[in-house]
């Protein structure tokens, strides 16, 4: 019997076409198709021989989609980190930039539709979990995350009823940014800040379009807690805000353009933005107010209706790699809660007074509370202030 070339093949040409048609029609699974045709083995052999063909490490975690949606904040990632992730996994990232946690919750509550990972803040977990909008994390699927290297002060907010719903991305403070070339007596407190706004700096102050920080700043200026939901204290804060409104440059959370153009001289400011502004324009001073302020941490969490759990985990795991965290932090500027990252960063980052404030100022800061976010009186105070 003569030997045909087909005898050594795992499958004949016509059988292969039959299987291909069955796979096309959906009669057999991809796995069956790859197995019966020998293509799966061929791919495995080839990829071990040609390493660049091997799927990325993240791929080993399961089937990744070719696209993912990330719900994030302005200026919050190094584009290089995201490009590297796409390079390693072939998953393209669509970043949806939000203006506030309320807006993010509202979108998720209305059926977020297609978001893989959200970057929510410490005080939102109670609400998200209550509304059933998050997937409890299986930390074994995030091998790059090491709970023992996390600072629990920043990382613990994502644990609700004993389940972990998020891993900490970074933390920061909410203070004030002042253009010291325009404002001679740089305010040291929220009280000074509002005094200057309604005095020498009239027309040049930005308040956030965000009740948590804007009402918080007014409450601190009056000597109350950043988190107050006391109706009497909120009424006084509302009065202060409405009195200051004619003196404001804008009410917006996108405050960098106004400050950079010189139109605005002062703003409520998150520390990473303070760092970015101060790096580019040294006259921009970041101030943690002596009468209080906010301490916060942001997390990576997975919505309950994520279109691809595997992709969500792959992304979070990638971002938890200390090397990638260092690269990401080079752009967003915020300190991370992971001691492995601190060890890899230059000493100047660790001693930076904007990112790591002096202990006496740091001790006066409060974490935002869940009720601060959802309190209906605060929401209404903000709405009345804006429409006044």
């Amino acid at each position, binding site marked *: 019997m003569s030997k045909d070339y087909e005898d050594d093949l795992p499958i004949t040409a016509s059988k292969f076409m039959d299987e291909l048609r069955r796979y096309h029609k959906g009669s057999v699974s991809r796995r069956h198709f790859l197995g019966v045709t020998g293509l799966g083995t061929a791919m495995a052999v080839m990829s071990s021989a040609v390493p660049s063909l091997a799927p990325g490490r993240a791929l080993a975690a399961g089937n990744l989609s070719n696209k993912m949606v990330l719900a994030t904040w302005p200026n919050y990632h190094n584009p290089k980190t995201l490009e590297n992730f796409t390079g390693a996994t072939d998953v393209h990232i669509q970043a949806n930039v939000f203006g*506030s946690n*309320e*807006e993010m*919750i*509202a*979108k998720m*509550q209305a059926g977020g539709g297609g978001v893989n990972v959200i970057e929510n803040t410490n005080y939102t977990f109670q*609400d998200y979990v*209550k*509304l059933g909008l998050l997937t409890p994390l299986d930390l074994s699927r995030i091998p790059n995350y090491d709970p023992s290297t996390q600072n629990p002060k920043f990382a613990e907010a994502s644990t609700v009823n004993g389940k972990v719903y998020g891993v900490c991305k970074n933390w920061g403070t909410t203070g004030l940014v002042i253009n010291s070339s325009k404002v001679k007596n740089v305010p040291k407190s929220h009280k000074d800040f509002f005094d200057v706004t309604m005095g020498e700096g009239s*027309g040049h102050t930005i308040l956030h*379009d*965000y*009740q948590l920080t804007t009402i918080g700043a007014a409450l601190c200026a009056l000597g109350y807690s950043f988190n107050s939901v006391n109706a009497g204290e909120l009424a006084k804060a509302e009065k202060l805000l409405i009195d200051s*409104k004619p003196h*404001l*440059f*804008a*009410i*917006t959370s996108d405050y960098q*353009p*106004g400050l950079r*153009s*010189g*139109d605005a001289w002062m703003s409520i400011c998150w520390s990473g933005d303070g760092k970015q502004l101060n790096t580019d324009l040294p006259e921009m001073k970041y101030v943690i107010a002596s009468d209080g302020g906010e301490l916060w941490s942001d997390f990576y969490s997975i919505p309950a209706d994520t279109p691809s759990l595997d992709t969500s985990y792959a992304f979070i795991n990638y971002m938890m790699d200390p090397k990638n965290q260092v690269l990401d932090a080079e752009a967003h500027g915020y300190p991370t809660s992971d001691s492995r990252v601190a060890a890899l960063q230059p000493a100047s980052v660790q001693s930076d007074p904007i990112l790591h404030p002096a202990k006496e100022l740091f001790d006066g800061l409060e974490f935002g509370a869940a009720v601060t976010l*959802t309190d*209906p009186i605060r*929401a*209404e105070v*903000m*709405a*009345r202030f*804006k*429409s*006044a």
Partner: protein
Amino acid sequence: MGNKKGSWLTAALLAPTTLWFLIMLVFPLIVVVIYSFGERAPVGGYVASLTLEQYANLPSRLKAFTNTMTFAPLGALMCLIIAYPLAYYLAVKVSQRWKLLLLVLVILPFWTSMLIRTYAWIFILGGRGIPTLLEIIGIEGVRLINTPFAVVVGIVYGYLPLMVFPIYVSLDKLDKRLLEAASDLGSTPFRSFVQITLPLSMPGVATGCMLVFILLMGEFLIPAFLGGGKVFFIGNALVDLFLQSRNWPFGSAVAVMLVIIMLVTVSLYMRFTMGGKSGRDTSIM
């Protein structure tokens, strides 16, 4: 028999449109009305209830309503003042050769997102934009961005094409022989314009004003970007209520009120501008 068949055909042809309106307009509107009688859930959203509380709270957004009812007609008027000469020039004066190119130039801005174009105005009107140029010629301390003026500029910029086209269409159809006849009979150009051109272009003017006015009633982007959050429209109040304070029932009540105001103004407007006219004049609507 034949008649019955015809009505079946009509029904079949209208079915997709009817279905579309039912699903995309009527049902959502019913949902909004139902929500407006509800209450805000403790963590935001909606819980069923039957209360008029949301409607009673409407006066707290009075400023947003008055702002909208000021800026929407003002914006439409400014658009009209600027669009009419432009449309007239395009329809009457420009040679056939250039007409198409110029019309394309009017639409050109629509090829980029409104968001990006409005954002660009932040820099044009900001401290390093026009005010810096004014300083060169000695006018100092001018603030343009985050003022009502900036909002009007943004409105005129964004909505001008919507005004130009209806007016252009009605002027383009104008029978030039009427103007010749008037001239032969000794009419001055100004009188011909007032007595012939202007009345015959009114359907276009009415359509343009209506388009701009109705869309402006729901505008939120321009006041947010160019008004710095200080010029507050109903659109901004709605965005806040649904996305920030997540008070969906109150947001629904505001939305219902907006629809009512719009229906009333538009029907009054139609009565005044179209009243007594024949169907031909309103065909453009």
